[in-house]
């Protein structure tokens, strides 16, 4: 749990890339300070030995109620397509994916 300020700046840069966010320097520093403050408060969890504890990912132990994997018409495909900011006929349109330069 190394959280030095310089380290934190790099961490924010890395996290921003993973989360598909992009900050100017001053905004990055703002979030670096807040993240550092929050991570410091989480160090409280180091007070307890949890090496033999099973993690809980869900509050209720019930097994998920899965239904058969059957294709069904949604009836709203056209309506969903209309919500796309850019579209071309029955397709969602996006800017270029491959850098051609």
């Amino acid at each position, binding site marked *: 749990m190394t959280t030095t300020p310089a380290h934190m700046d790099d961490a924010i840069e890395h996290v921003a890339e993973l989360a598909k966010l992009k900050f100017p320097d001053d905004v990055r520093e703002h979030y670096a300070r807040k993240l550092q403050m929050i991570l410091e408060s989480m160090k409280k*969890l180091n*007070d307890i030995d*949890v090496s033999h504890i*099973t993690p809980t990912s869900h509050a209720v132990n019930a097994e998920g109620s899965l239904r058969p994997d059957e294709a069904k018409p949604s009836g709203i495909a056209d309506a969903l397509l209309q919500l796309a900011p850019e579209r071309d006929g029955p397709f969602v349109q996006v800017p270029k994916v491959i*850098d051609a330069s």
Partner: protein
Amino acid sequence: MTTSLTQLTIHESHERLKTGDVTSEELTQAYIKRIEAVDPQLNCYLTRVFDSALLQAKKADAQLKQKSDVTPLTGIPLALKDIFITKGIRTTCASKLLDNYIPPYNSTVAEKLDRSGAVLLGKLNMDEFAMGSSNEHSAYGPVKNPWDLTRTPGGSSGGSAAAIAADLCAGTFGTDTGGSIRQPAAMCGIVGMKPTYGRVSRYGIIAFASSLDQVGPMAKDVMDCALLLNAITGHDARDATSIAAPVPDYTHGLQSGIKGLTIGVPREYFIDGIDPQIENHVRSAIDQLKLLGANIVEISLPHTEYAVPVYYTIAPAEASSNLARYDGVRYGKAAPGAVDLADLFKRTRTEGFGPEVTLRIIIGTFVLSAGYYDAYYLKAQKVRTLIKQDFLKAFHNVDAIVAPTAPTAAFKLGEKSNDPLQMYLNDIFTIPANLAGLPGISLPCGLTENNLPIGLQLIGKPLDEATLLRIAYAYEQSTEWHTKKPSMQKSDAKK
């Protein structure tokens, strides 16, 4: 003093609708007038759908007249937190990113409301993507607390709580991930319940933290809370975490009293930092429960102090994953001028998310990232196990737990908005029930010297909402706190 139509509870309105003493159209018109007059001060409604509400009211009046398909909600004007997907009605989750989003389908809750014959007045303000404890993180501006317009209503369901307190709707449904129903309910002097995780379908609620999110009723009194819960509870094949368990009628047994029930008082919920006025009123409420026949015993939930850091690891982790879908491609707003796809993602997300949501995405992405996963996320999940075990042990000896809902009454707008840790600590008494998946309810139990409401919290065994409602009803009927109404004034008091 005559009670105006908008002051009636759902069960009182229902009685009048059934006898024909009032029509749903008259009731709906009364709410519309009140919203138009009062909401500019409060900012509760993000979207109003009065035309369709009046059509629903006419339909309800016909059903009431013919006495066909009448439910306790037929013709009752309700509203929904803007996190519920509503077919054909703008659903923003208080985010700029979804400013133009008109869903082509309904959430299960909206569908059930529609089927019950209720009237939908509109969609209510909240913290963006339900991330916040003050409703100050809405892209559409903060909501004011009707008890003091210089204070927050709590959050994230702040618009919902304020709307009920100010009689801008008869009832609502909120969502509670770390206290977002119970904490604003406490701060606005209303009743709010978070049912057991899985009790109510999450299908069509915009996801924040999927292992914690739960839908619940917010109401003027406990009877209304039970009626609203009846309308939405039950298994839903469209939500894989929905529980297939029998659903009782929550209004049955409300009046059976609490003689012989054992209620635990956790010593870790009366800590330094709790406002002494809150502690005094909650302790008086506990005395009242004793007078009503409950056995009161002290209990310990030793890992309570770890709940906030556990929550603020797990909830942002899940949020960072859930919010990955907002990329400007399929729905919502897309940032203009992107040069390529990666640029579209980055511009849309950076410009679209507000500062608190961005911070939570950063925290969540960090604790899940390679090299930090075990130290933060996995550790938090293990401590979550200990918090859950604390409750399970306690419930061997008690039927329910009683505690404050929040450590303070409503705080001033801007008071905590620059200090996330201070803001997060306000959720200290509500978060544990979410981590353990337990039902919890908040109901009014007093007023501070500044005339601000105080909430009493009851936490129950899994799927035992009925016992919580029974205790809450017994307490409510033996006191007058639920009858107090807000002043809609600004206060000069500093504290």
